[in-house]
């Protein structure tokens, strides 16, 4: 029976002898696929049969990748937090003010202080003349103490705004109640819209609907609450919800008309920003021109919120690089662990390498086998590391109060970089395995 079966295979043998030379090339592409598949199976088998070793290797990579992912994710969260905070008005808003937002020296301060105040008339001129401007509003801020009954809270930002579109420009919206009407806004009545922190701080956390119509004291003056704002959250421990919006006319009456105001201008899309800025500059130059003709200084500052972001970016980018670099060192250590383990693996399997070579495995086949093993470990480690890193970032973000930004790119990068670490650290051991002399390798035990 068996003999018959084998005899049937004989013709193939003879043909095989005849055509080996031409048949050899044809199967070459297939060689790679089957050998790589074999390498993958061998790698998995080897990783599974050395569980302790595999898990120790994995930990090396997991720690490295997790550290990098966590650091990058937290930094991205921080960046995002800063960016949204400084530009909650978005990139479509710019301001006209007496002084720029960032003053670098005492000389600058003195120079800017000599400028003429930006007034309500300036704002009206811009509203009237700037065709590219969509929304124009003015705002002025002052810190005051807010009281209700026996509860009081200091350093609440009181923001006098007009017209009501200033709420839209600020990017805030009313959660409960309403904004004042035009008539109310110009009447000088003591009315306000409060941020949610006011509820927490002076109403003992009462719900929004219960405080509507209540009276609070702002800087010693009574104000009736018309509405409560949606929460914006906090940045660096400073709440952005600790605010009381009042009509600008009331603000002037209550806290002084002598302060320079800031004009806020919004354009429909970011593309129109530059045109609108140019128009506003022209309008303002005309209004200032006679007084400041001799000076280089235009007498006003036109800015977007980006100036903060630029400053922030400059200040933090180097710190970030160093932090990521330090985290990356642990990844390098992980790579060394993998290299060490792979060298052990090669030494341990010298005999197996000899057998495979005797049976026709080429250098590349052996090289691939060990490279795949190294990359398999680091890829799995990388994947676990990405998960762990995001987990860490989640916990830390939750503790500090940052948003958690799961970035697909950093996940792909984490696995990718760890695979590259696998290739680099696996290359030398794999090359050593590949160049083993089959006779020597077969002789080893």
């Amino acid at each position: 029976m068996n003999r018959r079966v084998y005899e049937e295979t004989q013709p193939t043998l003879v043909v095989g002898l005849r055509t080996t030379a031409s048949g050899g090339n044809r199967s070459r592409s297939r060689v790679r696929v089957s050998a790589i598949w074999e390498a993958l199976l061998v790698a998995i088998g080897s990783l599974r049969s050395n569980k302790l070793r595999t898990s120790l290797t994995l930990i090396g990579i997991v720690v490295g990748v997790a550290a990098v992912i966590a650091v990058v994710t937290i930094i991205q969260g921080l960046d995002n937090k800063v960016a949204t905070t400084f530009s909650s008005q978005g990139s479509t808003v710019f301001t006209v003010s007496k002084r720029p937002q960032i003053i670098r020296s005492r000389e600058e301060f003195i120079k800017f202080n000599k400028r003429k105040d930006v007034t309500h008339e300036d704002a009206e001129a811009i509203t009237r003349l700037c065709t590219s401007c969509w929304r124009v509003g003015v705002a002025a801020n002052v810190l005051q103490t807010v009281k209700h009954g026996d509860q009081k809270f200091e350093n609440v930002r009181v923001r006098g705004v007009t017209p009501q579109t200033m709420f839209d420009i600020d990017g805030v919206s009313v959660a409960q109640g309403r904004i004042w009407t035009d008539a109310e806004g110009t009447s000088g009545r003591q009315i306000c819209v409060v941020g949610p922190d006011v509820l927490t701080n002076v109403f003992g956390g009462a719900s929004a609907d219960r405080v509507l119509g209540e009276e609070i004291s702002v800087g010693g003056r009574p104000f009736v609450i018309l509405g409560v704002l949606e929460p914006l959250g906090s940045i660096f421990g400073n709440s952005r919800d600790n605010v009381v919006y009042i009509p600008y006319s009331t603000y002037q009456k209550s806290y002084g008309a002598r302060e320079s105001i800031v004009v806020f201008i919004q354009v429909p899309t970011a593309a129109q920003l530059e045109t609108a800025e140019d128009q506003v500059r022209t309008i303002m130059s005309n209004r200032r021109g006679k007084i400041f003709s001799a000076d280089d200084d235009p007498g006003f500052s036109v800015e977007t919120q980006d100036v903060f972001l630029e400053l922030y970016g400059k200040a933090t980018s180097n710190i970030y690089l160093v932090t990521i670099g330090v985290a990356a060192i642990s990844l390098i250590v992980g790579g060394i662990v993998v290299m060490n383990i792979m060298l052990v693996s090669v030494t341990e399997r010298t005999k197996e390498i000899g057998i495979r070579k005797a049976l026709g495995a080429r250098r590349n086949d052996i090289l691939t086998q060990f490279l795949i093993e190294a990359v398999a470990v680091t890829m799995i480690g990388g994947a676990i590391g990405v998960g762990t890193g995001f987990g860490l970032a989640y916990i830390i973000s939750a503790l500090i109060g940052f948003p958690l930004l799961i970035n697909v790119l950093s996940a792909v990068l984490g696995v990718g970089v760890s695979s590259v670490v696998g290739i680099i650290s696996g290359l030398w051991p794999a090359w050593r395995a590949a160049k083993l002399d089959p006779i020597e390798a077969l002789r080893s035990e």
Partner: protein
Amino acid sequence: MSNATLVTPPPSEVVAAPVSLNGRQEPTALISMRDLWKTYEMGSEKVHALHGVSFDVKKGEYIAITGPSGSGKSTLMNLIGCLDTPSQGEYWLNGKNVSEMDDDELARIRNQEVGFVFQTFNLLARATALHNVELPLIYGGVSSTKRHEMAKEALAAVDLADRMTHRPNELSGGQRQRVAIARALVNHPSILLADEPTGALDTHTSMEIMDLFERLHEEGNTVVLVTHEPDIAARAHRVISIRDGQIEKDHQLR
């Protein structure tokens, strides 16, 4: 290769005849060794493991290479098996000049032309019998369905059809060696090269394995046995004795 053009010559008929081998080689030889030298450098000293070995093997022969340890028969076996290249001389295997090949070409020849059987079996411990037998096919680029089929066939040919899923440690010594023989046969090589194939087996199992080799020879395979045991060598049809790196005696028994 289509089956339409398939013509089955009798085992004795010449199949792959080299066109011209510097006019020296007989066209009938499957293996042709011409003045082979193998020299090792031990420090400053040169050691000649082989000096000037020449012989031919025809397709379908059953040859034993014998000699005491240190005679150079292992070196010769490594050369025949294309695990090594000679320092000098020519080695033609199935029409190809092996003596000038690089590592990858040698690997290819080992894969296609040589079926190894080792004294200590050299099976992969973690792999099943079937997978062990498939190994040469994997490196030969045979598709997985074809591979399975061929490996099963080869295992059946050595009466191990019912042990395919066993791992080496679940098999007896004789069974392991038969798996190794199936592995050697699965790629339909030009030569079956066995290095002390019974060295790790008891007498009874040794005889079984030798019977198997005899059967494989009768089926048309070219068998080259390397052994130091006279009674094993005596079962071959031709015995080449090596001593001090040279052929001492080339003796046709049958």
